[in-house]
């Protein structure tokens, strides 16, 4: 049984911003963070003076490797006119900016700071797929990288073990992909804001224009079964099971609870926050789930007094379709072995009882790794404030939303619960 934890004082979210996610030739990390920061400032209902920000916590994973430039804390601090105030970079692979959020919460909860900016940035698209694969593999467990495991490979292996135990198949993974695309179609900031059906139609149009044989897919799953359209990356993970290579940034403004109303009459509060560590495929308790997620979830539920059924919607770290199914189970939304059935039954759709990845998730919104955790909380902010537009969850009395972020191959997992009061 984990110790029940609480913050020294309450922390509120009063603003959030996110750049468009995608592959940008003409934008770098600074441009992307500036885009997110500008939106964040304009999102604060009563306005925020950047001079009141006490410190920055910034998540970034691979810019050292991909951009040959490290030490991004002060670079971003200078960009937004915060220097000489302190900037701290956090690294937890793909969970880097969830760690920035967590450190920002602790900094305020301790009483040391009152106003903290947290966020993340990543610039990945200026490298080849092989280089990105190698770069991301920096966050596998050392033994895994050496025997050739890639990120899709680890989740592919997890899928084979999960399929064997619970009887799921590739067809079930397709349900996740189709749902994610349907949600991302409604998110203009998403890298792929189109449905699988839209994709099929554009391929058909292209073939017609070029006078090539016109594909005749019966439905979305037929398209996803077509190995020319959806080739193997790391079997059973195919192209449309995998998140893309992305550039992007996101940031969140955190303040002490007692001053939240100076910024907005509609703040969100940090209800629960959890983090766990994992041990890789060879040493994990079991290879069909992530113990780090379960630990993080227990911590966050314990702190908040909330249960899985109280979480009205959630972003989860769907770096791969298989991952989404496992997270649904690890977070307690569905029982082990039941996650794939829940997706099949439509329970996680935008209009279902437990909407998951309303943003389109990493799969379609994009996954600039160091920015992902903050961008998930941006989605929770938008949804809980009923500002998500076309993709707004149709739930009455919206009060509680959450975000689950996973770094590496489950080495670092976080779960953060935000609430309206």
């Amino acid at each position, binding site marked *: 049984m984990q110790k029940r934890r609480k913050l020294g004082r309450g922390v509120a979210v009063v603003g959030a911003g996110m750049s468009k996610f995608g592959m940008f030739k003409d934008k770098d990390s600074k441009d992307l963070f500036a885009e997110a920061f500008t939106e964040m400032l304009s999102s604060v209902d009563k306005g925020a003076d950047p001079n009141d920000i006490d410190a920055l916590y910034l998540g970034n994973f691979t810019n050292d490797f991909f951009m040959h430039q490290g030490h991004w804390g002060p670079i971003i601090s200078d960009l937004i006119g915060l220097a000489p105030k302190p900037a701290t970079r956090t690294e937890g692979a793909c969970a880097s900016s969830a760690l920035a959020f967590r450190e920002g919460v602790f900094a305020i909860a301790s009483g040391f700071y009152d106003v903290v900016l947290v966020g993340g940035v990543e610039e990945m698209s200026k490298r080849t*797929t*092989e*280089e990105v*694969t*190698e770069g991301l*593999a920096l966050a596998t*467990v*050392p*033994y*895994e*990288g*050496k*025997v*050739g*495991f*890639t990120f*899709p*490979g*680890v989740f*592919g*292996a*997890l*899928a*084979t*073990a999960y399929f*064997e135990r619970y009887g799921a198949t590739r067809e079930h993974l397709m349900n996740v992909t189709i749902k994610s695309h349907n949600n991302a179609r409604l998110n203009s900031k998403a890298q792929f804001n189109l449905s699988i059906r839209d994709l099929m139609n554009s391929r058909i149009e292209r073939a017609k224009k070029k006078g090539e044989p016109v594909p005749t897919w019966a439905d979305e799953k037929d398209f996803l079964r077509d190995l020319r359209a959806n*080739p*193997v*990356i*790391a*079997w*059973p*993970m195919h192209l449309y099971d995998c998140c893309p290579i992305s550039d992007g940034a996101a940031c969140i403004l955190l303040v002490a609870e007692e001053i939240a109303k100076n910024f907005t009459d509609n703040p969100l509060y940090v209800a629960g926050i959890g983090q766990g560590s994992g041990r*890789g*495929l*060879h*040493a*994990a308790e079991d*290879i069909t789930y992530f113990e780090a997620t379960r630990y993080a979830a227990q911590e966050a539920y314990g702190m908040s007094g909330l249960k899985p059924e109280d979480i009205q919607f959630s972003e989860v770290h769907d770096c791969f379709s298989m991952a989404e199914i496992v997270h649904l189970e690890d977070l307690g939304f569905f029982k082990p072995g039941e996650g794939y059935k829940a997706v099949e039954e439509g329970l996680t759709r935008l209009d279902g009882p437990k909407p998951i990845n309303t943003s389109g998730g990493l799969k379609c919104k994009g996954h600039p790794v160091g920015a992902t955790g903050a961008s998930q909380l941006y989605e929770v902010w938008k949804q809980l404030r009923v500002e998500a537009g076309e993709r707004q969850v149709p739930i009455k009395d919206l009060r509680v939303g959450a975000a689950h972020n996973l770094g590496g191959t489950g080495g670092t997992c976080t779960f953060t619960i935000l609430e309206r009061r």
Partner: protein
Amino acid sequence: MEGRPFSDIFYEQFLNEEKLMGSKCKKCGALFAPPRSICIKCHGSDMEWVEMKGKGKLAAFTCIAVGPPFMMKEGYDRAHPYCSGVVELEEGVRIVARIEGVDTTKPETIKIGAPFTAAYLHRGEGEEMRTFLAFKPL
């Protein structure tokens, strides 16, 4: 054998000698492969080397079509995927390894639970030699 530290460096040195070695906690008996110098069960640090028989069952696998540059250099690509997997050893510990001797273009023919035995892939020569742990069907 007995004098070698319980580290990744010496684990790999044993692989060069075609030995799959783990460490056992003398205090609580917990077994680890690859070896650990600190027992994660009882936090003891009095360990001994134990040789694994190198036999086990396939617990999970993937056939990778898009690999990192060092695997591409070995000649693997989209048309020639390689297999990486997790093997549950007879001794009760799990280990990650390359999986050889399977048809990676027909992954549905690779069966979880099937018996596999250790093989050693040597790359480079002399001081430069490195050995990758692999398993092949028994």
